[in-house]
């Protein structure tokens, strides 16, 4: 930045026969205005362009761009560009620019349709293999934990239980309560028409205990805990922390994945039970406030339909969803690319995978429990 005010960049010209003399003057700044070669040429067609820089003040890359444009024009028009009078520093940079212009070839990343399909297929196969490999590693890890429980990172598991369980109580409470309220309202619309208001308790109770308690808790934890696991492990991978574990002979699965899996496996059924209770309370609130059903009547009606087998169904689903969330989060985190974008993609992918697998396994459970008569 000059101490004096900059003067405008100029390219004064003088035509002598077929020779165009260009005198560069003023201060040339990349963020300011500068002459344009087509404008300077003003339709003239010299056979020789002589460049001089005796009036030049401060200059930067904008001057190089102008001179490069002159050189390119001369080459195309077959004119001779006489730049001998320019300072050596400018000539050196111009030469560098010509070289970089010639050698900088864009890297083509595009691919044809068949290559794309082929690579996507190979990628899918590779991902399936990685997933089964990961599950296998986890099973081996559980075996190691079983044989040497004193080596297991119990403290980490308990901390994770606090993070994914106790810390999730407020959001699980809110969502379960509101799901109970919504179910009660929907039930009331139909049941009231037949004078069966009291059966709202059955509808809310069964829906919450068998389906919605586990499902909603699973979705909340997939977003809350699954994404956090993927982001944490992804960052650890980017920082080479996972590499450090491997080179020290400590399996990353034992150190990072199993405590998280155990935490979710234990806390998800508990959170499911809690969500069931809150959903039933939500339904009870609507029943007593809107349908004038006393809480005691609601509770007695509920007990006629919901039994321990329903609780078992909900809790089994909860534990399965917990494993799914933990596996998806940890797998995507361990697979993450070593970049900021990679960590973001891992978190997104963990949530999508977990919710997809939760819905699929929920449907499978519906079939299995139907066959088992539960």
């Amino acid at each position, binding site marked *: 930045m000059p*101490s004096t005010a900059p003067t405008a960049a100029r390219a004064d010209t003088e035509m002598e026969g077929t020779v165009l003399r260009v005198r560069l003057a003023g201060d040339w700044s*990349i*963020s300011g*205005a500068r002459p344009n070669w087509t404008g300077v040429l003003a339709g003239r067609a010299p056979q020789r362009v002589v460049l001089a820089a005796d009036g030049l003040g401060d200059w930067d890359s904008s001057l190089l761009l102008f001179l490069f444009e002159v050189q390119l024009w001369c080459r195309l028009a077959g004119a001779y560009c006489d730049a001998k009078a320019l300072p050596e520093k400018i000539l050196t*940079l111009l030469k*560098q*620019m010509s070289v*970089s212009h010639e050698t900088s070839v864009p890297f083509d990343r595009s691919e044809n349709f068949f290559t794309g399909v082929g690579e996507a297929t190979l990628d899918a196969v590779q991902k399936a293999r990685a997933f089964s490999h990961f599950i296998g590693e986890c099973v081996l890890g559980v075996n190691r934990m079983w044989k040497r429980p004193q080596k297991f990172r119990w403290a980490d598991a308990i901390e994770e239980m606090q993070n994914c369980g106790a810390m999730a109580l407020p959001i699980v409470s809110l969502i379960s309560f509101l799901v109970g309220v919504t179910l009660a309202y929907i039930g009331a619309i139909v049941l009231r028409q037949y004078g069966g208001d009291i059966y709202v308790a059955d509808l809310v109770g069964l829906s919450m205990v068998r389906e919605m308690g586990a499902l909603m808790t699973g979705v909340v934890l997939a977003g809350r805990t699954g994404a956090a696991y993927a982001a944490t492990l992804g960052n650890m991978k980017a920082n080479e922390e996972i590499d450090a574990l491997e080179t020290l002979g400590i399996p990353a699965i034992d150190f990072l994945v199993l405590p998280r899996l155990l935490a979710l496996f234990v806390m998800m059924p508990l959170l499911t039970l809690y969500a069931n209770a809150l959903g039933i309370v939500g339904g009870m609130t609507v029943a007593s406030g809107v349908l004038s059903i006393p809480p005691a009547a609601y509770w007695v009606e509920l007990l006629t339909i919901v039994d321990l087998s329903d609780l078992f169904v909900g809790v089994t689903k909860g534990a399965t969803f917990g494993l799914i969330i933990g596996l998806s989060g940890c797998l995507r985190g361990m697979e993450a690319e070593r970049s900021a974008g*990679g960590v973001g993609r891992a978190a997104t992918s963990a949530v999508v995978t977990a919710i997809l697998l939760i819905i699929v396994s929920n449907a499978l459970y519906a079939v299995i429990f139907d066959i088992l008569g539960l």
Partner: protein
Amino acid sequence: MSLTPASPAPAPAAIEVTGLCCGYEGRTVLKDVSFTVRRGEVLFVIGGSGCGKSTLLRHLVGLNAPMAGEVKFFGQSFTAADLATRRGLLKTFGVLYQGGALWSSLTLRQNVALPLEEHTALSGREIAELTSLKLAQVGLTGFEDYYPSEISGGMKKRAGLARALALDPAIVFLDEPSAGLDPITSRKLDDLVLQLRDTFGTTLVVVSHELASIFGIADRVIMLDRDAQGLIAEGPPAHLAAHSRDPRVTEFLLRRDRPPSPAAR
């Protein structure tokens, strides 16, 4: 930006630092630091690990607000500047961060082009020419369309330098440019620093503890010390190494052990 052919000495001040106190969340790291960097000078900030070199750099470039004191660029206060002045001053300097700090979702070409797209009215073709030149100057021809995750640490650093030079800044701050580089690449980086100074008269502030670079290209060094929480020596490196009586300075510059104190014996 302003670049001029070599200007006659004594050059005007590019950076003036007066009574600067640096720290984080009330914890003072550096107290009352004052120094001046002349235009076209290569100044090294040296000192042992944890002495506050990078902290000083962060406060100079405005990433952290100083606890006290003032930083001036070309006579204009940076610390007390209003938003418009500050934005103008930000364009006068470029910063190379320790790890390169490249944006991971952009290719090297896009990384270098972004400041040009944001701050100039150049056409796409002109920006492409300049980005190719800047990347060629740091020896990255052929890697223009690679993503940062696809290149090595040293290449990331060089690409970071190309980005720092995108707007032809009058001042360039370099944080540990040689750390993690092989001696040949490190030497090439030093040559590039000298080329910048000689061609454009660029002022360079380099945070480093690479002795080869310090003695090779520094016009002057300032040395910081953790215990003193400030500046303990200032001058040309060879002069300091030969004439300083401060054992902390000679210990650092000559890699010499400090003589044991009588009490320790």
